[in-house]
């Protein structure tokens, strides 16, 4: 593909997608919780912007609606909820010590290369533009996974989860021009409910282990010989 050959608006989509990927890296390496939430909000705003630009280029009007939905949900509502919970859990100044941040970043770079390799066989003349965006969204999804693996803090894991959703939205919007409205509404509803439930769990976990470090949730495993008989 030749980037200069694309119309300006599609170039803008490519640019915004690249920025979404960058914010995934920021999320991965950001040890301060509040800053990570801000980065997540920006990522949501960028995905909304991509949706809006795709809506401008195409003729599917429901995309304007879904751009607005993404903006409200991903850039405003969920970050606000997370922010409030972080405040109520008194974690504003919390900053996690990352284990080997450089290694995580390098792994993420590896994931980007892997995703671009994975979509390479999708060869078709007209598809190149979207194929590359699919690679970027896949990378965002995989980096979200990586974040959930690397981070031990429950809120940070939720951020990883939500950034996976951002990657999925990006894929849906830029590769296919948006899913049907009813599906998008359903997905958005699921994400919102998931967020509410995560909020409930933050408090339950805190009550249970007095911390949000989910690595300390280790009572159930095949190797640990926990005395099951103590439980009714």
């Amino acid at each position: 593909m030749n980037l200069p050959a694309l119309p300006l608006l599609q170039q803008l989509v490519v640019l915004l997608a690249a920025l979404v990927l960058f914010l995934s890296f920021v999320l991965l390496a950001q040890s301060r919780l509040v800053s990570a939430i801000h980065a997540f909000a920006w990522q949501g705003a960028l995905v909304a912007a991509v949706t809006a630009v795709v809506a401008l280029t195409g003729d599917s009007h429901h995309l304007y609606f879904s751009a607005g939905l993404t903006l409200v949900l991903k850039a405003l509502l969920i970050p606000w909820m997370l922010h409030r919970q972080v405040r109520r859990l008194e974690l504003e100044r919390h900053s996690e010590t990352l284990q080997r941040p450089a290694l995580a970043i390098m792994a993420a770079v590896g994931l980007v290369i892997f995703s671009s390799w994975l979509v390479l066989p999708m060869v078709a003349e007209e598809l190149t533009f979207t194929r590359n965006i699919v690679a970027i969204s896949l990378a965002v999804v995989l980096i979200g996974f990586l974040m959930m693996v690397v981070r031990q803090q429950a809120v940070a894991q939720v951020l990883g989860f939500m950034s996976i959703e951002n990657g999925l939205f990006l894929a849906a919007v830029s590769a296919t021009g948006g899913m049907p409205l009813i599906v998008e509404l359903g997905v958005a509803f699921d994400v919102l409910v998931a967020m509410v439930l995560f909020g409930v769990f933050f408090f339950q976990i805190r009550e249970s282990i007095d911390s949000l470090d989910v690595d300390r949730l280790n009572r159930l495993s095949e190797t640990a010989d926990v005395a099951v008989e103590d439980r009714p």
Partner: protein
Amino acid sequence: MDATLTPSAWLLALVQALLYLALAPLMVGWVRKVKARLQNRRGASPFQPYRDLRKLLFKETRVAHTASPLFRVAPYVVFVATWVAAASVPLVTIDLPTAVVADIIVLVGLLALARVFLTLAGMDVGTAFGGMGASREMMISALAEPAMLMAVFTLAMTAHSTNLGSVIDHHLGDAFVLRPSYLFAFAGLTLVALAETGRIPVDNPSTHLELTMVHEAMLLEYSGRHLALMEWAAQIKLMLYGVLVANVFVPWGIARDLAPASLAIGLGAILLKLMALGIALALAETVLAKMRLFRVPAFLNLALLLSLLGLLSHVILEVGA
């Protein structure tokens, strides 16, 4: 490029190289002036660095007893290497005989040569500060150089050439294109430039606070003519990075032929760009605080990441087979 090998073109190349010498102190003065205004001070005249240089040049030059000959040679090597490196970066026009050697890798090599002599000189006398500054400088540059090379390769891959002139020419030849790779390379290169020229938040050029200084620590033993050359080289380096960033990422205005009119436009354009960059730098230095030395690797890792992302987004998004 046959037309460029005429005597007048060679003359122009020489003038361009001399322009670097002449304008570098002014740029530093300009940044200081703007910074002073931002901090509600009147500040010295932008021409103050010229006066400082003149003063130093005519002062007696003292050398420590323990210094080896390397200590005396180093200022000249540093100065000449930096200057030659600067002269290879297109300033006003890309259509010059020097453009043939204006290869990015040569540029990086020349700067590395200057740095090696700078750090050797810093360690030569054997004072604590010199050695400390040298080791810090090496730590920063070891991290900054890969980032810079990566950013530069991103540009080179777009233009299919490591020649600066061709890169700029290619960029000018294209219509307006939104390249994510350029955005990342720009951000990465800017961070590298801040680190390499010893600006806030990596180093503070206007302090001699013993615990934090990097560049100044290596120059502590120099005086007179030697110090003037070292300072001048640092100023040229700042201007070099400024011109590099300005002309590669915002090349519009640079002359593509040797007609007097376009040369005049080119000169005006680069002066405007450098002024704007100077204001941006002063603003950034006013807003940001210097970071602790142990945070510097994180800063440079960010630069490396940005350059890497530039490379990746070029491969994935822009070429994409």
